[in-house]
């Protein structure tokens, strides 16, 4: 029997195809590109996992509960989709934009008046960026409450934190590029925070903005970071992040006491090796032929096959979510224009000068405490605590009721951050005075 006999589809795709397409699909050129057999059988689908790049991103099978939207709210996936939208719209913007103090603001106006769909592209880019920051934060919160940072995912949690930092850096560097008053003063306030780092703060700030005030040097380095350095870093780390999610089985084991405790959907398999590491991969059809110490083979407990094929079940859901995200940002882009204030003027500070909303909580904190405390110690302490969290929190339980201390501490921090952000974003006016949003709206995103 030749190799082609093995790969020849026996059912499903191919039978009812037009002659030309069938001929194309059987040609050696087509087979050199699409190497999987496209058999619509469990074996065919499993084989595709080994011959298909797409299924190297996804596992062949996933636990059934992953299909439920409430399981993860698809937040990580939504963040990735938003990043994709940002890459595409960002490329369009790069064709029009020149990172020069003399022309950047004019390019923004040109997008509005001289480039077909230019303003829409900018709007979608802007709203996607804000949404990505929001969704990545929500993803972190969801992962915490699900206990998904615990073994063996400790380092993937750290990678996720790096991605959060990169997302903030992306948004912050992009904030300056329109070179309007909003951009200039939000970045002035944001970069002055660095000044409070003991000993090296002043020099670090100089390195960051390329001088003692925001200018051409700042614009060009923020642009280089925004379009080259940060995308390269984010794509690399995101690749490792998703790869680890996929290798870790795409789902957290639900348990109140440990990896295989009460509520777990997979029972332990006697023995070890690859079958033990990923029983769902084999659809529960694991047969152990090795010697089992002091127990008969009949004592083997089999994994419960509660898995489904990724294609089409999960992939179809992802496609629907991706379409929904595209529709949402497009709607936002049509309804709401990205703000563009007057040309950046270093001699006139708008009232109030607010940092971007995701730093507004810090700005609010800064109005109450010493800058070293509010601008450096609190945020740096929070980041360090989050990085160390999976290594400090050794409690194996993932259910919230079994990890009350961690959940309570995190919830207090979360509520404080949300309250400060809401106050800083919506309730502050000129002179950082208290102004209710229904009295006057001082919010621009």
């Amino acid at each position: 029997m030749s190799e082609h006999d093995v790969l020849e589809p026996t059912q499903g795709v191919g039978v009812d195809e037009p002659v030309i397409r069938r001929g194309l699909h059987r040609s050696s050129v087509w087979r050199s590109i699409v190497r999987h057999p496209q058999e619509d059988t469990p074996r065919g689908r499993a084989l595709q996992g080994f011959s298909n790049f797409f299924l190297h991103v996804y596992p062949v099978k996933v636990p059934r509960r992953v299909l439920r939207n409430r399981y993860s709210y698809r937040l990580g996936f939504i963040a990735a989709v938003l990043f994709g939208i940002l890459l595409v719209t960002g490329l369009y913007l790069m064709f029009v934009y020149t990172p020069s103090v003399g022309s950047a603001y004019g390019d923004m106006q040109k997008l509005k008046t001289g480039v077909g769909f230019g303003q829409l592209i900018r709007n979608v880019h802007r709203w996607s960026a804000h949404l990505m920051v929001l969704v990545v934060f929500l993803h972190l919160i969801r992962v915490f409450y699900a206990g998904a940072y615990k073994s063996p995912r400790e380092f993937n949690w750290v990678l996720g934190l790096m991605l959060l930092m990169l997302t903030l850096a992306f948004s912050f560097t992009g904030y300056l590029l329109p070179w309007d008053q909003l951009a200039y003063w939000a970045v002035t306030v944001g970069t002055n925070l660095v000044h409070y780092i003991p000993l090296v703060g002043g020099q670090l700030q100089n390195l960051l903005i390329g001088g003692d005030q925001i200018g051409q040097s700042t614009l060009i380095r923020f642009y280089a970071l925004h379009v080259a350095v940060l995308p390269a870093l984010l794509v690399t780390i995101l690749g490792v992040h998703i790869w680890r999610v996929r290798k870790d089985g795409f789902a957290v084991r639900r348990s109140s006491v440990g990896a295989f405790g009460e509520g777990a959907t997979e029972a332990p398999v006697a023995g070890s090796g690859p079958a033990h590491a990923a029983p769902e991969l084999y659809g529960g059809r694991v047969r152990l032929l090795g010697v089992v110490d002091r127990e008969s083979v009949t004592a083997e407990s089999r994994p419960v096959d509660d898995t489904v094929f990724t294609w089409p079940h999960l992939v179809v859901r992802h496609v629907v979510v991706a379409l929904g995200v595209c529709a949402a940002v497009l709607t936002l882009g049509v309804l709401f224009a990205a703000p563009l204030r007057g040309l950046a003027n270093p001699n006139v500070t708008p009232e109030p000068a607010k940092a971007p909303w995701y730093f507004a909580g810090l700005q609010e904190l800064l109005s109450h405490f010493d800058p070293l405390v509010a601008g450096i110690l609190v945020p740096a302490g929070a980041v360090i605590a989050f990085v160390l969290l999976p290594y400090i929190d050794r409690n194996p339980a993932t259910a919230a009721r079994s990890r009350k201390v961690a959940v309570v501490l995190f919830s207090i921090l979360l509520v404080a951050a949300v309250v400060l952000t809401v106050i800083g974003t919506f309730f502050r006016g000129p002179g950082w005075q208290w102004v209710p949003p229904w009295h006057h709206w001082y919010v621009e995103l």
Partner: protein
Amino acid sequence: MTEPTRRQVLRTGWKVGGALLAGAAGYTAFEALSPLSTGAAGGKIEVGAPSNFQAGSATYFAEGRFYVVNAGDHYFALSQKCPHLGCKVPFCDSSGRFECACHGSVFDLAGEYVQGPSPRGMDRYHLALEQGNLVVNTGIVVAGPDRGTTTYRTPPKGPSCLGKV
């Protein structure tokens, strides 16, 4: 001491070579990012005779981004940049004080700290009298006076500009 094996020497060589390469890359990045100049600051600006500045006044010079103030018999060139987070601090005519609209820091006419989150008073540029004219050197900056300094403190002339919505 035993002779290192060829493998040990090579392994150490790779480590040293890698460290040197990383160091060179880091230094080059530092050099590339270091500012070539100090932005707008650094030049001398002649602002006119002292008699042009009335007592209790603050005059803004956009080209140097500073104020020249006459606090009684003392003149100061104050940087417009708030020491808190870098906003431009406007002068409030009604109170006769500098009042930052970003976070509410207030400074008296001489730039001394009065209230708000600023860690110190407003920074001062070097000011000299040359051939009858005041000359501000923006290349020489003196950090603002510490909180609690009240050398030139006078009561506010009138109502504050902050909080006027």
